[in-house]
């Protein structure tokens, strides 16, 4: 295990890594989601969509945490954007994350990403003392850091300007949950809890008990949502990790997705300048989106609304690329490379 967090600087470093981590999962999820043809795999698409929307919320919550502590979230720098295939930022055990279409392989990667603690990813490399066992464990360490730095008698670390917080009214899209405003240890705790419970979980429980928020619903943790796709069956509220899913069948058609090239790069498409141009356009738009997000997380939270149409535009362009035949029975696809 890495050493515990004991300084504000370490905490900010960790949170910046968290931001990179949450973001790094989004392009792989989007590739899988957008490769699904309209009308096919609707349930699987809805699962991936729900997860990716929560990852976007997590980015926002982490940005709020950084801002609360007086830091500056960075989301549009060269090193922020992974070069796929990639390992996740240096936090958790190493396993390869690809940009690839909806497929059994993609779902295995997603299971690794959302692995609950205690279950080591099957594909991971041997244990590494500088890394956490899972994303959940990483956030436990962040939480411990916040607690340590907020102990009685220490000066408050929550010195950030509250105007920099993304509030529910800025958070245009719903579905991922609420944007929580972070101003003190208690609200920081809630934000971290939200990230962890929705995602990988700490307890290994199937359902995130959202009922304490008064919303009267249980949400299945990400890992188990992907388990449903892998196993082709839904969990019931009464199911446990040991029992496996015992609910209705979830139909998956692995053959009907657009077979996007795995980890496409603009440079690989030099032979067809038209495709290359479309990929570059996608990347420029993606870069613009990151710029807008950067400004939204750095003092202009109202810009978040403007980011939403950009996200839709990215979707349409990604889908257009995935419809263009390329080599070896594969199609073109979005490469998510920072391009200015």
């Amino acid at each position, binding site marked *: 295990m890495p050493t515990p967090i004991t300084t504000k600087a370490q905490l900010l470093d960790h949170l910046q890594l968290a931001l990179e981590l949450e973001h790094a999962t989004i392009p792989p999820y989007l590739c899988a989601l957008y490769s699904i043809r309209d009308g096919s795999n609707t349930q699987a698409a809805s699962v991936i969509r729900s997860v990716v929307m*929560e990852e976007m919320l997590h980015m926002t919550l982490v940005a709020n945490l950084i801002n609360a502590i007086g830091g500056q979230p960075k989301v549009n720098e060269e090193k922020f954007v992974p070069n796929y295939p990639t390992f996740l930022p240096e936090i958790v055990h190493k396993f390869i994350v690809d940009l690839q279409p909806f497929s059994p392989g993609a779902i295995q990667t997603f299971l690794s990403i959302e692995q609950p603690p205690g279950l080591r990813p099957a594909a991971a490399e041997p244990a590494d003392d500088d890394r956490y066992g899972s994303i959940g464990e990483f956030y436990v360490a962040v939480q411990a850091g916040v607690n340590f730095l907020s102990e009685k008698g220490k000066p408050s670390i929550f010195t950030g300007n509250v105007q920099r917080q993304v509030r*529910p*009214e800025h958070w245009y*899209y*719903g*579905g991922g949950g609420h944007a929580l405003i972070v101003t003190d240890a208690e609200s920081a705790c809630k934000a971290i809890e939200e990230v962890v419970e929705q995602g990988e979980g700490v307890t290994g429980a199937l359902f995130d008990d959202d009922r304490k928020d*008064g*919303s009267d619903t249980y949400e299945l943790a990400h890992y188990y949502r992907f388990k449903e796709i892998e196993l082709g069956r839904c969990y019931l509220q009464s199911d446990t990790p040991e029992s496996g899913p015992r609910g209705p069948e979830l139909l998956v058609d692995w053959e009907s997705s657009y077979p996007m090239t795995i980890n496409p790069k603009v440079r690989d498409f030099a032979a067809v300048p038209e495709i290359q141009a479309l990929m570059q356009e996608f990347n420029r738009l993606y870069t613009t989106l990151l710029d807008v997000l950067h400004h939204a997380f750095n003092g202009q939270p109202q810009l978040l609304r403007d980011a939403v149409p950009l996200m839709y535009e990215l979707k349409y362009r990604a889908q257009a690329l995935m419809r263009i035949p390329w080599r070896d029975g594969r199609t073109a696809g979005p490469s998510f490379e920072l391009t200015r």
Partner: protein
Amino acid sequence: MSIHPGGQPDGEYDVIIIGGGVIGALIAQKLTAQYKRVLILEAGRAVGSTFPSYQSYVETFYASIPKTPNAPYPQNPKAPSPLAIDVHNITPGTPDLSDYTVETGPLPYGSTYQRALGGTTLHWMGFCPRMVPNDFKLQSTYGRGVDWPIDYDDIKNYYCDAEWAIGVAGNKADQERFGITFPDDYDYPMERIPLSWSDQQLQRYIDGEVVIDGAEHPVEISSLPHARNSIPRPLAARGGKAKGTGSYQPVPAVGTQSTGERCEGNASCIPICPVQAKYSALKTLNQLPEERHTLLTQAVATELLVAANGRIDGVVYKQYPNESTPDFLVAPVTVKAKLYVLAAHAVENAKLLLASGPNGLANSSDQVGRNLMDHPFFITWALAPRHLNLGQWRGPGATSEIPNFRDGAFRSERAATRIDVGNWGWDVATFPPDSNINAFVYGQNLYGPALRNLIADELPRQLRIGYVLEQLPESTNRVTIDRNYMGPLGTYRPVLHYDISDYTRAGMAFAWKLSDAIFDKIGIPRDQIFTQFDENSTGYMPYTPSGGKQMSLAYIGSGHHIGTHRMGVQKSDSVVNRNMRSWDHENLYIVGCGAFPTSATSNPTLTASALALMAADDMLKQLG
């Protein structure tokens, strides 16, 4: 939601509600919150009650060629809905039998509703304007129609309740006109749906005055309140009834947490919101406490039973296991409760009352089925000049209205009108883009870039303005039943008798002048205005203004069935009292838009919802 399509009632109920639409759902919500047990009978299917089954509606919509209001919802032979796909002008003496409803004319009614779980909120547009105070006293203010037994002050708190129960997006500041008021500490649960790009462009030209026949009229573009999810307000906006901290939680799609918490501008609100950001009654039904309600679907109520003391003593329903089951295999079942609520839709409510008892029920006033109204919808359309950069075809069907003609002294002479500024090009005027593409491809032999360029040039410039017109209650506009026109399961098909009086036609003629003045103000040349009608137009009707020459008008139905069991202050000329309780049967409530004495110009669902919540208070009082 606990659904028993093949199941049975379970135990005793305080209230039986007939109809699983928005009105029945809101009443069930209020009663179950007070620990009453409720049985809901829904004639249609429960499709839509799960996320995958709702998606099947979406798929049906994508695959269907005419995108009519009922296109996503397969016709149900055991509980048919009027489709109004081809509205025919009616030949005198020859009823139009082509749809589920029989139309005898002289004019076609031409509006649809939906008989499935969720009711017509499945395909409604979702506009939720309040009525203005004078709408409740048309007779005493303007000498027209009748007064309501309640006024704006009686209903205003229920409007607040309804807006929060449905989840309405709006800004109260935009709605405070013609005497509409809100509590100081109140606002809608969500911020208004933003004005579309097209609205914003038009606003720059329209806001100001127009001159018609020498008189100046103020005009402005203003936002419409919508039952679709937007940015939530803090819970404190609920005002005096605020509970808890944090923000209002927009209700997501039924059966999933990840979709529908915000409108995404899919622009297919009618006939279906693919993400369920638009409210449908399915959302309210989905939240009913499991242990205090039973929902029977595919259960068609066929008769109300009445005891010697005048109280309703049971509902007979027929529950079909599937749509191909022969009628004679479906046995009638009787269920009983303390109170009965008829929330099946204005037309179906009237039909069931007329079909019950030896000579109909709740009808000592002879008003059941009478005073049928709609909001005849008059449309005008034009091609805007390029410099306006109108950018049509974005967002919900309309995001703004021109509210200035909803009330005024003119209502003693002609109908008021609420004006929708469309976002979907010429939509119901010419059915683009298909109609344009057909004309360009087959008419002009265009293809490739030339075709694409023409479409890109023309469609964004299409401007359609719609005028929702007031109609007065007339006893000869009515729903009847007739042994010659029977439907499935031994039920009747509704027979509609419908005409539009000169009061409304005069309002329409004024709307046309107003439209020309607005198009002028925008700077649209006369040869780019395409509004015109002839005898072959759907809903054609002639009108001769006093001292003028005959003109050709036309309308389409708004789907706002109003007035078939109106409320009033006395038993002799109304069906229900101010609490929507039957004058003749003290444990029977007849709710929905059918209870409206007049139509005014507001889309009726919000007002019907507020009235339903008012009626539910009376029910709770009766139940003790």
